[in-house]
């Protein structure tokens, strides 16, 4: 399993390089050529700049779109008084881990939560462990530990307020939240 994850990590890392680097290199020669005073060169440079800017904008938009898509499925769930990430959430974890590996400048806050069955302080501690374990799973999936901050809201920010299992199961979760770029 670890080898597979390492392989995923490497592939994604390379893909990340391939998609980012060429844009920077394309921009560099154009700025050197600008030393010659030539209106056509200046026009060409302006066009190239515009194209580069458009490409960078498109790339940024693509990353933003991908982040938005990931943000829409950013919760992992836990059984009562359990802090281990469950097999059912492996795909969610891997999607986020791969994205983080591909975009090393992106950072997230993982916020752990708990249902109300416990004291506020015990649940704060439990939520923190859920966040820590979610972070570990993301790191195993290829993310860098430095990209991930963990916090806990314990039972203080329930998604659902009723005293029943349907509600509690939604409140026992960790959310992976992307920080603004």
């Amino acid at each position, binding site marked *: 399993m670890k080898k597979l994850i390492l392989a995923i990590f490497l592939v994604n890392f390379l893909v990340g390089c391939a998609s980012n680097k060429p844009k920077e290199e394309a921009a560099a020669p154009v700025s050197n050529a600008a030393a010659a005073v030539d209106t056509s060169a200046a026009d060409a440079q302006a066009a190239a700049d515009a194209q580069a800017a458009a490409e960078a904008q498109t790339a940024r938009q693509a990353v933003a779109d991908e982040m938005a898509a990931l943000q829409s499925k950013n919760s992992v769930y836990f059984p009562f008084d359990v802090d281990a990430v469950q097999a059912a959430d492996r795909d969610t974890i891997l999607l986020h881990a791969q994205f983080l590996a591909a975009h090393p400048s992106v950072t997230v806050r993982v916020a752990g939560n708990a249902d109300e069955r416990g004291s506020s*302080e*015990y649940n704060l501690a439990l939520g923190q462990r859920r966040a820590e374990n979610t972070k570990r799973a993301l790191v195993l999936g290829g993310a860098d530990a430095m990209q991930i901050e963990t916090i806990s809201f314990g039972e203080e920010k329930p998604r659902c307020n009723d005293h029943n299992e349907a509600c509690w199961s939604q409140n026992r979760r960790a959310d992976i939240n992307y920080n603004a770029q």
Partner: protein
Amino acid sequence: MIVRWIVLCLLLFAAPARAELNIEITGAGEHQTPLSLVRFGGDPLIAQSLLEVVGSDLARTGLFRLVDPAGRLPHSVSEVRPAEWAGTETLLLGSIEEVDGGQLAVRFSLFDVVRNAELMAQVVTAKRPHLRAIAHRIADLVYERLTGSPGVFSTRIVYVNRDQGSFRLVVADSDGYGEQSLLTSKEPIISPAWSPDGRQIAYVSFERQRAMVYVQSIDSAQRRLLAEFPGSNSAPVWSPDGTRLALVLTRDGSSNLYLVGRDGQGLRRITRGYQIDTEPAFTADGQNLLFTSDRGGSPQIYRLSLADETVTRLTFESGSAFSPRVAPDGKGFVFSLFKEGVFYIAVQDFGGAQTQILTGGGWEKKPSFAPNGKMILFATEMSGRGILATVSSDGRVKQKMVAQRGDIREPMWGPFPK
């Protein structure tokens, strides 16, 4: 067994805007002392207001049966004819005098009509706006003379009021009057804890998007960050001598216990390991910490000696145990017991492992003793709203205190006024 229902609507005296909590009492003490409160001499409106507060204070304990004086109005011991008072044992009587500069001097006596003897005579003086404080002081003295334990009617409580996504940290009189907001925030506030001198509150606020520990002065509203380490900073509690606090940090991994000086210096880690250790509470001698830990599987209460850091398990309940607080006499502790889906308030002596459940069960959390050890304050729920409740430490008398707005959570009873 006599079960009495007394509903005291504390809207009688102050402006309605100041009456933040309504109180409902159930149960009665094993022995109730018959007591007549005779309207004091002096300004009749002031006298009536004063006696209503004294009466509701004493009635809330469940230890007194208030006997209507039926129009008899002795204002001094020399005016009492014991033969007229067959239905009662004790009279509270007195007079109110307005002295210079808006001061009220309230002279009162406690008189035993069975033995025809004066039990106490005192004068309490304060400015007129502090009439409730005078009444609480008189109730404290009467309670102490008749039960042998100091009264707690002049003490204060702290809690968090959550109303439509707004959180308020509130200090109030023990009967819910005189609410004072220390902090209003859009983010959660939990775990307020009193300093032993009653002047400061330590608490956890999420206002910076994660749990950090603050210490705030009640009178000046000045506050400072005590702990802002990475991860969660929480569960502050003062040592009995007020020189340091115990708290919980996750900066080194899992939730572990730490000690820190009241100035934030000299951080010392107390527990280690991957388990959850939280909710420290000092024993009365300051030499040990009780705490909640899941090191044995389910959350239970443990005791740690600060001298050698040895740990002893104290609760062995099926289910789980949370939020220990030590009794003022140092002999036992109270905690919240979660069993078959229900929270109860329970007490246990340090001597034996026998747990005594005091309440009927519900969402009963965060118990703390009154400073005389006779009552326990906790958070519970009624009709889906978070409310305050108390239970006598023998389990016989219960009160519910209902706020006019929002949910009340995370209470703690304050110390005797210094």
